[in-house]
C-alpha cells in the first residue's frame, strides 16, 4: 500500500477509535444503570454482547426499572432498533458481497458504524471504517458494561450521583441531529406531548409506543415541504 494510503488509514482508524472509546464510557453508565435496575452481571454481559444496540438496551432496562412488563420492554427496545434496519440500505454498499461475512457484519450495523462508513470517500475505506469501528466499539461497549455492572454494586444509590439525569441527557444528544428538519421537529414535539399526557394514565413503556403516532403529522409536514427531507446518516455524532 502506498504511504499516502497508509496515512489516510491511520487517521481514519484514529477517528473510529475516538468514537469507540466515547461509547465505552456510555457502556459504563449502561452497566451501572442495568445493575441498579436489578439486572445481574451475566444478564448485563449477555445483553451488551448480543443485543449490541445502546439506545435499545437503555430503553429495555429503563422500562423494567420503571416496573414495566418484559413485553413492553422488548417492544420499546425493538422499536428503537428499527432504525438499524434502515441503516442497512445505507451501509450495504460498504459491506462485502458474500452472504456469510455480510450476516456477520449485520450485527455491527448501528448508529456509529453506519456514520463512520458512509463518511468515507470510497467502498474500500468505507468497509475498513465500518469493521474497525464495529469491532473496537463492540469491545469498548462490553468492557464498559462489565466495569459499570461491577461498579454499580459499589454505588448503592445512583440517584445520589445524578445518574438518572444522565440518560435523558444522552437521548437529548441523540435527538439533536434529528431536529434539523421541520418534520423532525414536529415529530419530536408531538411525541413529547403525547408521552407527557400518557404517563399518568398508562402502564410503563406504553407512552413511548403511543408516541409513534407522532410520525403522522410529521409525515404531513414533510409531504408539504419536501425540501430537507432526511438527516444524512454521516452527520450523527457519537452515539451508543
Amino acid at each position, binding site marked *: 500500500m502506498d504511504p499516502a494510503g497508509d496515512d489516510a488509514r491511520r487517521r481514519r482508524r484514529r477517528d473510529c477509535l475516538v468514537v469507540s472509546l466515547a461509547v465505552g464510557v456510555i457502556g459504563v453508565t449502561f452497566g451501572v444503570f442495568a445493575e441498579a435496575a436489578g439486572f445481574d452481571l451475566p444478564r448485563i454481559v449477555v445483553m451488551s454482547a448480543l443485543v449490541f444496540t445502546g439506545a435499545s438496551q437503555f430503553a429495555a432496562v429503563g422500562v423494567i426499572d420503571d416496573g414495566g412488563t418484559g413485553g413492553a420492554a422488548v417492544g420499546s*427496545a425493538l422499536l428503537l432498533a428499527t432504525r438499524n434496519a434502515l441503516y442497512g440500505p445505507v451501509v450495504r454498499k460498504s459491506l462485502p458481497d458474500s452472504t456469510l461475512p455480510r450476516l456477520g457484519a449485520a450485527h455491527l*450495523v448501528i448508529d456509529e458504524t453506519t456514520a463512520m462508513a458512509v463518511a468515507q470517500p470510497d467502498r474500500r475505506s468505507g468497509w475498513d471504517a465500518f469493521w474497525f469501528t464495529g469491532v473496537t466499539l463492540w469491545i469498548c461497549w462490553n468492557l464498559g458494561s462489565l466495569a459499570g455492572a461491577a461498579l454499580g454494586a459499589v454505588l448503592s444509590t445512583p440517584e445520589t450521583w445524578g445518574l438518572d439525569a444522565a440518560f435523558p441527557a444522552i437521548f437529548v444528544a441523540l435527538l439533536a441531529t434529528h431536529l434539523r428538519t421541520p418534520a423532525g421537529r414536529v415529530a419530536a414535539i408531538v411525541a413529547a406531548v403525547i408521552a407527557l399526557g400518557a404517563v399518568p394514565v398508562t402502564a410503563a413503556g406504553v407512552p413511548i409506543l403511543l408516541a409513534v403516532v407522532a410520525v403522522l403529522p410529521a409525515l404531513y409536514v414533510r409531504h408539504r415541504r419536501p425540501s430537507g427531507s432526511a438527516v444524512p446518516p454521516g452527520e450523527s455524532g457519537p452515539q451508543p
Partner: protein
Amino acid sequence: MIVLAAGSYGLKVLGVTTLGSVVERRLGALVSLLPAVLFSALIVVMTFETAGELVLDARVVGVGVGALAVWRKAPLLVVVLAAMSVTAGLRLVA
C-alpha cells in the same frame, strides 16, 4: 432477553438483505422519523416520570443543563457529566 437479542439482530439482518431496500422504498419516510419520535418520548418519560406519575425534581434542571451543552455542541461526555453533576449538586443542597 433472548427475544430482544434475536429481534435486534433480525432487524439488522433485515436491513442488509434485499428486504431492506423494499422497506426503505415503501416505509423509508416513516422509519426515518422514528428516532425523533422515540428519543423525544424517552426524554420526556425519563425526565418527568417517577413510579407512573409526572414529577418535577432535580433531574429536570440537570437534563436542561445537559440540553444546553448539546446545543453548544459539547462532546457527549461533557453533556453527561454536566447533567449528572448539576442533578447531584442540587440534591446535595436540597
